[in-house]
């Protein structure tokens, strides 16, 4: 059954990624096809997650690969808030290939299978995994917005004559959205980390590398907001900082997997 939902979701995300490339070359029909691809993929993946929840014993996305599956869904969900608008299709060029690739990795790791078991309580996992993943999804979107900002800014600086051909949000909009996304995501990360610390104190155990890098991620994004508020960091510098924070997110999500999960 999971097969019947995984493949349509992957094909739809893949179609959207290709269509967004087509949109970048010639705006119009490709953009609409891409948007529908994301919507259909998201619906199929939602159905897959619902099915996993129904068949699981406990929290279904406690494993590394399972949490990656949920992470992809959260990223696409947040993207869909803006992605349906024509001006934000450029963001899809960043988000959909990433979503499709991570979805495949989740699949290879067994994260899309049914019948997961977890020995942690549901409440702890919902708070800890759910909030941390929601925050990371927000940071991923912020990184996407930062990448689009830098791309558009570079085109403006270089006086690219084709800049008006592809509809895109203005630099100020991208900068503001990126900051707001981080502003909303950081409290979620804070609460998620707090839930993890509470469990750590109850159950004992040491701090692993993933926890340390997650804390560094918190400081990076906290620093982003602080520098923005008090240091006047806007535009290009803020975008680079958002991307630097995202590197830590990538390390947490894809590199340091063995020490924390399982």
């Amino acid at each position, binding site marked *: 059954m999971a097969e019947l939902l995984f493949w349509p979701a992957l094909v739809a995300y893949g179609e959207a990624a290709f269509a967004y490339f087509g949109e970048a070359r010639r*705006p*119009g029909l490709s953009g609409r096809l891409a948007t529908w691809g994301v919507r259909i993929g998201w619906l199929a993946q939602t159905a897959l997650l619902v099915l996993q929840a129904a068949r699981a014993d406990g929290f279904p996305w406690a494993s590394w690969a399972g949490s990656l599956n949920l992470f992809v869904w959260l990223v696409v969900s947040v993207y869909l808030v803006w992605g349906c608008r024509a001006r934000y299709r450029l963001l899809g060029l960043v988000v959909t290939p990433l979503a499709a690739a991570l979805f495949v990795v989740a699949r290879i790791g067994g994260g899309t299978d049914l019948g997961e078991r977890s020995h942690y309580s549901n409440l702890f996992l919902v708070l800890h995994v759910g909030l941390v993943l929601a925050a990371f999804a927000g940071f991923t979107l912020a990184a996407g917005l930062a990448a689009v900002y830098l791309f*558009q800014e570079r085109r*403006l*600086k270089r*006086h690219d*004559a*084709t*800049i*008006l*051909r592809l509809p*895109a*949000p*203005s*630099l*100020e*909009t991208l900068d503001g959205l990126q900051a707001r996304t981080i502003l909303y995501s950081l409290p979620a990360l804070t609460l998620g980390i707090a839930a993890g610390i509470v469990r750590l104190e109850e159950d004992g155990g040491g701090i692993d590398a993933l926890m340390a890098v997650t804390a560094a991620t918190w400081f990076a994004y906290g620093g982003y907001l602080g520098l923005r508020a008090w240091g*006047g*960091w*806007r*535009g*290009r*510098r803020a975008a680079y900082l958002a991307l630097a924070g995202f590197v830590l997110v990538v390390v947490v999500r894809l590199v340091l997997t063995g020490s924390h999960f399982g």
Partner: protein
Amino acid sequence: MRLSLVGISHHHAPVEVRERVALSLTESTALARELGSAVVLSTCNRTEVYGVGDDAEARALAALRARGGEEVAARTYRLADHAAALHLFRVAAGLDSLVPGEGEILGQVRAAYEAGVPEALLNRLFHDALHAGKKARAQTTIAESPASVPAAAAALAQQVFGELGGRSVLVVGAGKIGELAARALAARGARLVAVATRSRDHGAELAQRFGATAVDLDELPAQLAVADVVVACTSAPAFVVGREHVQARRGRPLFLIDLAVPRDVDPALNDLDDCYVYDIDDLEAVVQTSLAGRRREAERAEAIVAAESERFRAWQASLDVVPTIASLRARAEAIRSAELSKAKLSAEEREAVDSITSQIVNKLLHLPTIRMKEAAAAADGVFYADAVRHLFGLEDER
């Protein structure tokens, strides 16, 4: 009914010829009334008279000749029926304009239609043409990109700031091109706050027109500290805006539009964070790319317009068989009524039989009616109509 078009446009006639028959809306209405039933479209690029009837073309031509003389008459083009309709659809979509997809023409077609004296066919023609014009713009990007330097400057400012509502514009110099750029920015919601010139008096008139303040160039640093967009268009031989003028800005974007030759803005400012400098060549390049894009989109718009004009042609052709269909239905109804009147029936029975026979006649004639209209759209309508007239003996009812 024959649809005709007599017109003169930028394709075949220079402005000194076109201006002889350039008409105001009031004059267009007067001419339409003079011709009986017509719509007169008169813009900078064209004057066209759309009419209906066998002599509509000759009368329109005579009217244009009377106003513009023989040279106008010699340069007119004359189109009929589908060709005339297709032409108007292309005009409404901006495909006949100098700049493909230009925005004004759709409003001008609407104004001409409202000022004209259209009968049923012209009503439908203009209604469908306006629809086609809107559809071509909605389903393609032909009208989205800027087609002039001021429009490109404003569109680029929007790439930095998004909506320009509340953004402050500083104009340096009082040149005409600067004013046009300021107008384009103001049309998108930006506010012209100051006009800086060597002598305050030079900029006073321009500043007054926009409700802005005229200032001396000495005050430039202070004005640059608060402006979001700068339009520079002086005739100064050296840079007027340099790096030292924008030190006071801290992290706030500044978009500088340099329309002057020699340039007014030091291009090195473009290297500063949040500073974007576009000179006249950069803007021209954006416009050229934009126009190339419009020309590409024009191909898609042509397909939309062709499909819409084909629908109009099918509708117009179906009008040819309407008299035959009406005669056929009248004949059937006459036979039904005559036969019904012969029957000796009670009032209740008569009502029931009347209803049943009406339904039978309607059902019998439904398919032939549809088929005749379809055949008319496919150009076989006349043969079908003649056959029906012959078979049912409708010739006398012509």
